[in-house]
């Protein structure tokens, strides 16, 4: 059995506010997914979001919380800082490049949801990096997030959300399943 298997890959041929996949099998141990994204928002660096689905496409839209460590981003500055959120409609302490520089620079973000199909609370790790042709505030980001939702049902789908503006053409989302004993 392969340790890592492709579940789904999508690349946008135009703008879209979300990238969604709702047929994740329950046969894996963990979920690993990577996204190369940019929004058409005029802001330099802004939040994107992740929601998950349970059962037969039941979208979970509450109870998301998280902690963040970052530099750059919409809040600016090169001094690392932290942030926290609770009771959100999605995991949103995740940053991506906006379109204020009109450059083809996308943010790379990797995610891990361990034990996605057990009755445990759902936790996600995220690591995102993006930079435009500037080191000014709002034109780059390095961010690591720890995310929690107390839902105990198995995850059957994922939605990547552009909270401000739309994902631009060529944004991609690739979802993998990790096998385990």
């Amino acid at each position, binding site marked *: 059995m392969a340790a890592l298997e492709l579940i789904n890959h999508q690349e946008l041929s135009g703008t879209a506010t979300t990238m969604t996949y709702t047929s994740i099998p329950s046969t894996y141990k963990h979920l690993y997914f*990577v996204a190369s994204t940019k929004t058409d928002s005029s802001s330099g660096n802004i939040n994107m979001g992740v929601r998950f689905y349970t059962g037969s496409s039941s979208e979970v839209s509450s109870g998301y919380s998280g902690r963040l460590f970052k530099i750059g981003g919409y809040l600016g500055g090169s001094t690392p800082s932290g942030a926290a959120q609770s009771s959100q409609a999605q995991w949103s302490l995740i940053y991506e490049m906006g379109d204020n520089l009109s450059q083809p620079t996308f943010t790379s973000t*990797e995610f891990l949801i361990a034990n996605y199909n057990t009755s445990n609370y759902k936790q996600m790790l995220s690591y995102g*990096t993006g*930079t435009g042709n500037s*080191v000014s505030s709002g034109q*780059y980001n390095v961010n690591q997030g720890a995310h929690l939702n107390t839902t105990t049902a198995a995850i059957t789908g994922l939605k990547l959300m552009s909270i401000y503006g739309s994902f631009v053409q060529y944004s991609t989302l690739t979802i993998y399943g990790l096998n385990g004993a």
Partner: protein
Amino acid sequence: MASAVEFIAKTELGSDTSSVSFTSIPGTYQHLQIRASVRDTASDYVESIYVQLGGASDSPVDTGNNYIRNYIDVDGTSETGSGQLSNTNIWLGKATAASADSEKFGGMFINILDYANTDKQTTVQAFLEAHYTSGNSARMRFTAGLWTDLEAVQTIKLIPNVNFATHSVFTLYGLKG
């Protein structure tokens, strides 16, 4: 179901070496990942590691001022962030070097998403860590790097401050999409 990750190449050094390159990388994968265990022969506890990329028009990598880097450094007691424009490489961070215990090697991973997409500049996402004394001192760097070129990546060149030490290991994987 077929594996979504494929081994492309591995280099394990039998002697100290001034650089390690992966060449002729096929454009058939969606993403690239590098996993490495690295040590520099420079006479310090930690020393810098860099990367340069190349496409079809480069010979074999782009050595111009076409790289940008932003990063967070964590040394166990403080965190700092910084970045630089117009570099000749992406500074990935500092690996364990010659003044550290001889058994210590730093761990490094690099993600290059959509490396063959010629509509995107190439983002290099990296993490590098190094323990550098016999105690618990360590350094970590989280890097956002950019190669401001639209060519598909065909060559990756990793460069130490002096030499990569014997037994450093570099493995390149391709992820399907």
